[in-house]
């Protein structure tokens, strides 16, 4: 790269008249860059003073920095020595003699340490104990992961399901092929309790899982909204096919068959919520989900 610029010139400012002419032009260009940078900096201050405008600020800042940058690079390439020099490398490793001297010095000190065995042992023990003791405060960072991962606020069933504003839901509120997100009443901020209510068509071939024949009301089925892959909300419903799709990683669940995964990385069906109607005709949950909601974890099945 250096060879391409002013070949043959090894010092600053070549003496050749052609080079001098060219040098003059480059010098002017370089100086112009610095002037542009100065003007842009002033303009930047003015723009800021006048209330600011992100695009103008960015462009003017770029002009300032770029002007200085181009100016310096031109300067360096044309008016600074660009001759190549060679520097010898020296062995990186120490000589055997140096290593021997170090070992001797270290051993001399070490032998005095070795004579007090009991001190070395007890000091080591004390430091180890300190290390272990200092680990304990890590425990303060979070609560013990207990039942929380396996339960949701639906454990207080029977409990009405409500939409985000707290309004309870009747079967008639859902159109055929429609779906809404609901929570247990009083827990609309519980991230693990978001539930999808889906109204399928009577002739769509819904197959209840064994033992869950009475978990639906008026063709409405409820599943956890949290994907069993990494817990994204399963937000897309293809009503025609009866498929729920997770927009994060494209896991697909078959609503007609217990929300079993039919495509993508999810390996488990969406947990189902048992539904019923209360005396006033509102939809209630009669128990917690059929399985822990959301992503899997080590002792999920225990």
């Amino acid at each position, binding site marked *: 790269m250096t060879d391409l610029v002013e070949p043959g010139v090894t010092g600053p400012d070549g003496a050749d008249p052609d080079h001098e002419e060219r040098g003059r032009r480059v010098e002017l260009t370089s100086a112009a860059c610095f002037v542009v940078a100065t003007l842009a900096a002033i303009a930047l201050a003015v723009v800021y003073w006048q209330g600011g405008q992100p695009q103008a600020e960015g462009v003017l800042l770029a002009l300032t920095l770029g002007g200085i940058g181009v100016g310096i690079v031109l300067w360096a390439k044309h008016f600074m020595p660009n001759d190549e020099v060679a520097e010898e490398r020296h062995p990186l490793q120490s000589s055997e003699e140096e290593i021997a001297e170090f070992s001797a010095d270290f051993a001399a000190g070490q032998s005095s340490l070795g004579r007090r065995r009991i001190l070395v042992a007890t000091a080591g023990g004390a430091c180890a104990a300190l290390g272990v003791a200092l680990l304990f405060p890590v425990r303060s960072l*979070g609560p013990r992961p207990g039942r929380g991962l396996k339960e949701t606020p639906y454990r207080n069933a029977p409990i009405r399901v409500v939409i985000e504003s707290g309004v309870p839901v009747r079967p008639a509120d859902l159109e055929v092929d429609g779906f809404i997100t609901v929570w247990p009443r009083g827990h609309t901020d519980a991230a693990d309790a978001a539930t999808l209510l889906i109204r399928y068509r009577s002739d769509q071939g819904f197959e209840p899982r064994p033992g869950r024949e009475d978990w639906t009301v008026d063709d409405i089925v409820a599943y956890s909204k949290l994907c069993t892959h990494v817990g994204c909300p399963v937000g897309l419903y293809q009503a025609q096919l009866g498929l729920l799709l997770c*927009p994060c990683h494209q896991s697909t669940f078959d609503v007609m068959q217990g929300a079993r995964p039919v495509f993508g990385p999810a390996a488990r069906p969406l947990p189902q919520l048992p539904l019923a109607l209360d005396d006033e005709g509102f939809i209630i949950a009669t128990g917690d989900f059929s399985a822990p909601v959301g992503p899997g974890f080590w002792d999920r099945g225990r």
Partner: protein
Amino acid sequence: MSDAPAPETPRRRRGPEHLLTHRLARWVDSRLGTAKLARTTLNKVFPDHWSFMLGELGLYCFIVLVLTGVYLTFFFDPSLNQVIYRGSYAPLRGVEMTEAFRSALELSFDVRAGLVMRQIHHWAALLFLASLGVHLARVFFTGAFRRPRELNWIIGCTLLILAMLNGLFGYSLLDDQLSGTGLRIVYSITLSIPLVGTWLASLLFGGEFPGPDIISRLYVIHILLVPAVIVGLLTAHLAILVRQKHTHFSGPGRREDNVVGERMWPTYAAKALGLFFLTSALLAFLGGVFQINPIWIYGPFDPAEVSAASQPDWYMGWLDGALRIMPGWEIRAFGFEIPNPFFPGVLLAGLTFGLLYAWPFLEARVTRDHAEHHLLDRPRQRPVRTALGMATISFYSVLFLGGAADVLAATFGLSVNAILWTFRFLCLLAPPVVGWVTYRLCKELSARDGVPTASTVTVREIPGRLRHREEPKQAEPESQALRS
């Protein structure tokens, strides 16, 4: 004051004795004896090749990140307290949100020069990771990681991991819809680790997702812990580079036992400074003109919602793609399970970086080449290494594209399932094909060059073309210190 051994620079450049800088240099030298070391530094030789600028580019991005980041901390508040937005962005007025999201909006709309700083910061992070990536590739394909530079390879890999994590933590702070989704995935991947996952997730997030503490913790990690470690490792990276001297490509007069290039002072220093300004200029332009991470469009985080086409920043794309491409398998036995995200999210990431760290040692072992190398390989001279490198890059490129499967499907009107199936096969097929083609190409190219592959290249030396110079002994201070 005047008993210093030598002035710091030749007098003709610095001007008369009474100049303030000159007197200051004398003052410092009489107390620290810096002139000798400073002269060595001025005369340090740097080989010139465009690919040696890539790491430098990363350094300059990091400097811009620190400068803009400090500015952002003056306005951002990493709090999860719920507030009602009353700022100047009309569409979100009256919406309930966290203080973190609100202060990010205020920073973007109501703090003068706030938005441009935020966007420069984000662009700098993207370019930082990009330059680390290509720098890594350069070091790999030219064999610059070989003895004695394994230590710097290890430090470099650590820097890459830290940079990726800090980028992820950074855009997760704002508590917008996209970053909340990202944090949920981080939570689930942590949760998926066998035995300790539930504990780890609880300790990291301060409880179950969304966790009351995660944003304030990530904030401290993002602005203090990781940057401090990066600064430390960066310093070590550069100190080792200076101690071991730079590698160079073979050429006339360039040997294993010398280093040919420009002196640090003044040309190389000026070029480096120029590059810093040009990098900053590019970032300022990107940050001013190209919108990035428009959180006001995403809205505040709501754990029950997610938008379609949720993509992470580019450097996390391969992991997100791996999560998507992975078939729906998990291991379950005796009531215990290893959930699906563990395999792409922990195992693949662990293998990736494990192999990366181990590469110099693996290669030395396989090739039985334990010698010092200061002359760089051209990629074609090492067909096997180059082929393996390209195969690896193709694998991660397929994963990266997999991360955009839904966008590709929507853009080209294809089925997402078909695209994902294609990628599942491609990530297995592409590496061997790309590797084989690369291997053949390397063989062809080096045959055309007439250069034998995988052996030392003999270099003709043209005497007299280069000036050789005595260089002050570097090893002296250390050895003296050890002796005394």
